């Protein structure tokens, strides 16, 4: 026990004395939340809307009123024709155009289908898609309402579930936690272990009476603590700045976070066992853990819209399961009753990876 405490103490000294790395570790969660919160927004506001209305009638007026009453849209005026719409979009004065068919009310009254075209500026594909879907939601709302003429009048309310304000902050925060934990747990562990190999101190530790498990715990435990602190920092900051809720159990979130940290730590140990220098370990950690966390966890890019092959690949990305769990707990207040499959998968990964990493560490003694 005494020897383990000594190792832990020494590792903490390493961390505290490496000021630059420490600053990066502390600032990382803080800066990332702000960066992602303000810079990378997928929700759109104040969409500049223009109409093309060849023959104004009751129907076009009703739809215009709907758009005018919707806070997401800002009606900037009426264009004469489609070429004028194109010019406005090129100039940036319009982002979405709603183009009514000539004689719309008459066609509808005669039982014919009425056509309304939506044109969206998709220079940024993500925003373009959301603008377009906002606009079509407004028109569909009107259509549904008018189809049911007799009897009860249905006023559809489009509501986005679990993310009532459709804030992208709510979506990215769980992913951000996975990022921060991956960096501290996997990357820092791999770096600190390979550093000892580079400097030759690892040999001295292996020649000493320390058991391999003591060396591993002595090396990785401090990063587990730093990871937990990072997790808390993200949760608190997201709440203070972006009012991201924590609907579910805080303790469950911490416990699941710990599980994910264990998985990442094991990955870090595995990487360090296969690499001889910090530089290679850094590259391996970036490609092997950070990229999948960024791209294949559903953090930024929805998994559903990925090619099937990538969806399969994402099944082995630990962050995918952690992001699902964290979203469940934070936004929906889901408990273990529903999150047990994801938890079980993470637990399985933790057991397999811990076993593998412990073995890879022992092999080096042979």
């Amino acid at each position, binding site marked *: 026990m005494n*020897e383990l405490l*000594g*190792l832990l103490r*020494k590792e903490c000294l*390493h961390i505290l004395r490496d000021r630059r790395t420490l600053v990066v570790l502390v600032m990382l969660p803080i800066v990332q939340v702000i960066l992602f919160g303000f810079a990378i927004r997928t929700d759109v506001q104040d969409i500049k809307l223009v109409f093309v209305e060849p023959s104004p009638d009751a129907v076009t007026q009703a739809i215009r009123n709907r758009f005018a009453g919707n806070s997401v849209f800002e009606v900037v005026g009426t264009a004469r024709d489609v070429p004028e719409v194109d010019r406005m979009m090129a100039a940036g004065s319009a982002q979405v155009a709603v183009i009514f068919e000539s004689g719309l009310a008459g066609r509808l009254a005669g039982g014919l289908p009425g056509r309304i075209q939506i044109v969206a500026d998709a220079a940024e594909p993500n925003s373009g898609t959301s603008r377009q879907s906002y606009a079509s939601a407004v028109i569909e709302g009107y259509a549904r309402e008018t189809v049911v003429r007799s009897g009860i009048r249905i006023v559809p309310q489009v509501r986005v579930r679990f993310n009532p304000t459709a804030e992208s902050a709510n979506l990215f925060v769980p992913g951000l936690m996975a990022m921060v934990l991956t960096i501290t747990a996997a990357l820092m562990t791999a770096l600190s272990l390979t550093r000892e190999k580079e*400097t030759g101190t690892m*040999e001295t*530790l292996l*020649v000493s009476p320390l058991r391999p498990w003591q060396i591993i715990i002595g090396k990785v435990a401090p990063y587990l603590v730093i990871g937990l602190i990072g997790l808390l920092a993200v949760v608190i900051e997201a709440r203070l700045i972006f009012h991201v809720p924590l609907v579910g159990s805080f303790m469950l979130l911490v416990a699941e976070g710990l599980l994910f940290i264990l998985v990442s730590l094991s990955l870090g140990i595995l990487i360090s066992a296969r690499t001889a220098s910090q530089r290679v370990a850094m590259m391996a950690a970036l490609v092997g853990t950070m990229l999948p966390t960024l791209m294949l966890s559903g953090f930024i890019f929805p998994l559903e819209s990925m090619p099937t092959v990538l969806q399969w690949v994402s099944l082995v990305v630990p962050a995918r399961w952690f992001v699902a769990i964290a979203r469940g707990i934070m936004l929906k207040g889901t408990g273990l009753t529903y999150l047990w499959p994801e938890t079980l998968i993470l637990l399985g990964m933790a057991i397999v990876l811990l076993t593998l990493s412990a073995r890879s560490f022992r092999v080096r003694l042979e």
Partner: protein
Amino acid sequence: MSGELAIEARELSRSFGDFTAVDRITFSVGVGEVFGFLGANGAGKTTAIRMLTGLLAPSSGDARVAGFDVSRESEQVKQHIGYMSQRFSLYDDLTASENIRLYGGIYGLSRAETRTRTERILARLGLEQASKVQVRSLPLGWKQKLAFSVALLHQPKVVFLDEPTGGVDPVTRRQFWELIYEAARGGTSVLVTTHYMDEAEYCDRLSIMVAGRIGAIGTPGELKVQFGVDSIDQVFVRLARPAEGAAA
């Protein structure tokens, strides 16, 4: 097994695939003896040391270090040996005292015992003033002397030094060897590898490895007589580079 021997290797071998790095070496080191372990780069010295320190399992043969079998009793072996690698054993970002304290803890010394030994080491090396300085800013020679003292901290029966004096001036090397003699007088056996032939002359006995085997073994005097030359340097050249030696 014999009680007076610190190291006893018998037919010790290690191969990696088809390559035999260490080929049936047999030698022994007595208690309090300074044993030079010489050989050209790649002759198998490091592999042999790794087997003797329990870092590497022998392919065949056996060895006893400090009275314990390296394959079957590696835990006991580790308690009784010290080790200083050619890349040091110290942490650059810790101070001298912190390094000593760390290894004191690892080898199970009490807090009080560690403190006494720390003071003794710092006084012996004249490092009292620099005890709060991170090791990285110490001169190389001091780092090496400190690393050696740390390897001796738990008073091991055998200490392994892998090229301990690389890159320092002759005066500092001489001081380092005084520390080695001190340890040997205290009953610690020293196995040291070196590429400096003047250092080879300081050893009680030495062996020269050639291509995984022991090419020659004996006191420096015996070896010079045996090869009919007047320095270990010439012995080494004869053995390690037979063709060039003959041509010279």
